[in-house]
């Protein structure tokens, strides 16, 4: 079931790329108004907006007019209706902007499509779930996630650590839903999956130890109940003591001591937002389905690799191989 969903997402990705590469989209005639809700003080948000603008500017027919509404002005109830009324499409950056914009229930805005960028999939699912139970079910809603698809993460494991076959995962109450997808991804890569669910923060290490007893690598999964500075420290120290590599989900995680991670920078996500905008503009603002980042990077902590006695390939080489595995048409 979930493999089907994943294939669909991948299928759409391919289609989308195909469209971008081989079908010249019709020129965008008149100026399109895009309103971006973001926190300009946040470096990642600023970076995403820059990345989006730069990507749009690369096209000679760039007819997009971008206006940025600071997230703080939504808090103050000083929303300039006009910014939203004129908008053909609203882009939100980050979870907070998505949550607050989704709550703007002015009837005049109800039909404006919303694209949530830089949002973890769990959060987007939370927002759409909430919306379904609320008034405005008709609105066109999509997202470009912040996190990486599981098959991509598992493919990285297989490419980087081909000799490791026992994958351990600790889930939390919120990330439990990832289990079927995880099982599929592991099976596809020929790995045995050992997963346990920690009920709360204090049982994380006990649960982790249960998983460590069976596995020889750990894929870290973000979960609001079990992931914070304190638990990450504990997780990294406990796994390192047993010389078991951890695959993180951010650049910072790898800096902290995880072996490696696949992640997308805000710039890369900004580029994808630009692609989605151009595509939507040609389809009367019909948004593409929610999608994982297409562009991503790999980071490896070579000092940790070395200390674990692992010889890993070069980051670029590994990224190239992952892209090929991820998208054989490339």
């Amino acid at each position, binding site marked *: 079931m979930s493999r089907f969903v994943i294939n669909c997402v991948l299928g759409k990705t391919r289609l989308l790329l195909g469209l971008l590469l081989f079908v010249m989209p019709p020129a965008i005639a008149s100026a399109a108004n895009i309103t971006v809700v973001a926190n300009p003080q946040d470096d990642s948000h600023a970076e995403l907006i820059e990345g989006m603008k730069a990507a749009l500017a690369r096209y000679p027919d760039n007819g997009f007019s971008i206006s940025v509404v600071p997230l703080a002005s939504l808090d103050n109830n000083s929303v300039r209706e006009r910014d939203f009324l004129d908008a053909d499409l609203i882009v939100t950056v980050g*979870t907070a902007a998505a949550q607050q914009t989704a709550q703007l229930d002015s009837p005049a805005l109800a039909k404006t499509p919303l694209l949530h960028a830089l949002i973890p999939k769990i959060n987007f699912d939370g927002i759409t779930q909430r919306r379904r139970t609320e008034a405005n079910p008709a609105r066109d809603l999509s997202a470009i996630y*912040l996190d990486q698809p599981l098959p991509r993460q598992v493919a990285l494991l297989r490419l980087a650590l081909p000799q490791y076959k026992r994958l351990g995962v600790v889930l939390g109450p919120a990330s439990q839903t990832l289990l079927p997808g995880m099982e599929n991804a592991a099976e596809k890569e020929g790995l045995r999956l050992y997963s346990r669910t920690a009920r709360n923060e*204090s049982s994380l290490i006990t649960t982790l130890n249960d998983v460590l*007893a069976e596995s020889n690598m750990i894929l870290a999964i973000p979960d609001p109940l079990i*992931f914070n500075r304190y638990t990450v420290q*504990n997780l990294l120290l406990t796994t390192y*003591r047993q010389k078991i590599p951890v695959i993180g989900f*951010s650049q910072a995680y790898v*800096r902290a001591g995880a072996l490696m991670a696949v992640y997308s920078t805000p710039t890369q996500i900004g580029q994808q937002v630009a692609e989605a905008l151009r595509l939507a503009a040609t389809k009367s603002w019909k948004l593409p389905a929610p999608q994982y980042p297409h562009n991503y990077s790999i980071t490896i*902590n070579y000092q940790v690799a070395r200390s674990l006695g692992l010889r890993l390939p070069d980051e670029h080489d590994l990224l190239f191989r992952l892209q090929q595995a991820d998208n054989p048409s490339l």
Partner: protein
Amino acid sequence: MSKNTRALKMAVLACAEIMLLITGKAHAGNGKETATKWLSDEDFLGKMPVILSASRLSQPPAEAPAATTVIDRDMISASGARELADLFRLVPGFQVGYASGHWQTVTYHGLADTFARRLQVLIDGRSVYTPAFGGVQWSDLPLALDDIERIEVIRGPNMASYGANAFQGVINIITRHASQDAGTRIKAIAGSKGVAEGFLRHGGTNGNLDYRFTVGHREDNGFDNRNDSKRVSLATLRTDYRPNTNDTIMFQFGLNTGPRGMGEPPTQDNPTPTNNEHTRTVNSRYEQLRWQRSMNAGQEISIQFFHNYHKASEAWLTPPLKIIGGAQYPMNEDVTAQRYELELQHNLSPFEDWRFVWGASTRVDQVTSPTFLGTTQALNHRLHRLFVNGEWRITPAWLLNMGAMLEKNDITNTDIAPRLALNYLINEHHSLRASVSKALRTPVIYEDRANYKASFGPLLNHLYLGNKALMPETIVSRELGYLGNFPAAYLSLDIKIFQDEIKSLISAGQVPYPGDNIDGKTRQFLNGDNASIRGAETQIKYQPQKSTQVILSYAYTDINSSDYWIRYSTTAPANSFSLLAMQNLPGNLRGSLGYYQTDKVYYIGMVTAEGAGAMKRLDLRLARPFRGGEFAVVAQNVLNGYQEYRYQNIFDSRWYATLTLDLQ
């Protein structure tokens, strides 16, 4: 005794207060974030501190410039050891001897008396060998076994990386990070020979502060028929504070106090020993502060300060002595030893193939002992040190490790200790190593400044005299190593062959002393014998599955010495062997077994008749973990009794039981 109890009480109160402060706050500030089920974007985009920093990452054995043995927590628990010193029986080439129930000597390749002076011993980067006599007073360390994360033993000299006194080897004890022990642990041990121990540990976190404290009490009766019992009151505190994502400030405090039994009973040969049975009261403590900035896993800078304080109060009256008309002579062996050290260290990796550690330190060792040093004044010994260690990966298969230390001290002035190691990684599973290193041992304060005399009215008996002209001892060590992994057979293998040339060994030799009107002689420290040590060592690990492990070590050691002043050639066992096996058993039981066998060995200072024989010892442990704890039973030496260190110390069978409760 009452002084110790008071000190402990104070420590407990202080810890309790800190706990209240911290947990009180923690409860007030918690709960908010955990209520939400949203992921924070920051989890993906935010910054995080470097947890596995350059100083925390250990080198893979195949790339290490020296033979290394790691004792991890599984091994510590499986060994059934109750004394830290016993763990070193698992390390090839190491010997452990109990001069008394609470006085252990741990040495590598012999050359030891009640103090083993040629090892550097670090606990979290804090050097703990005593500045007075050299060697470590293992029972006096403020350290609970359960707080140890792992012990890395470097078998061979390495002053460039580990500092002064890393002459024959290094014991590097790393305690657990405060965040690893959340919750409360209560542990009780009871057994034969008067063994009774109790520990309470509590750890937790509050915002950016992780903390842990341990309080405990330990006691036992030592060997039968000897006055060598110990009572230890223990308190330690560790806090790790992160003001931001790059910086960590660690603070530690520890205390170990209590009485120890000393002295000899009267015998037929010596009915009135001047070293008759008495009590020594130990007050040992330390404070340590380290600031560390980690830019990434390869780059780190740290500044550390610590202070060790060790006071032994030991005053007693001899039995009535004929020589002074049947009077009792007041003896006093009080010693106060302190060490202050400030150290800067910088790890960097400026190019992909290069890694460096360099640093500098300055320290003051201070000893006060009216009896041993002949003055009521504190004597100081200053030492400044500059060190650099570089590692160059010439090709993926070849690794060159170079290091040097420059030391300037009050006693022997300026010395330099270089080392060079070349590793060849044949493939993923096999590697070779060749290394040559030089190291020095600067005399300790007693060797430099001893002035130990006993006067009975007009009679003067001069016992020990220091020597200002002493040169440092030197060692040049050459070794070849092989490391192999045989995954199909679940085996890993480590072999080392070595040849050490040691010159100018410092020993006390009998020399004329005109002022002495009893025998006209004293014992003065001098650079006497040379020794050449060669041998082979191996450790083999067999691990067919996670819960089954067999770790075996064997060492052959051959000491050739001029043996003019001291019979150094007999100070290490020719063959020594250890085996540790762990296996999960049906019924959720965990079994383990430790077997130790060594040839005859002689410790310096023992008269021949007192020397200990060969030993064979089998220890067994059976543990039953349950939810929130563990119950374990340990039997030590289920075979026949053997002699530890000297013939009076019979280590016969003994047992104890441990109950551990972990409260979340």
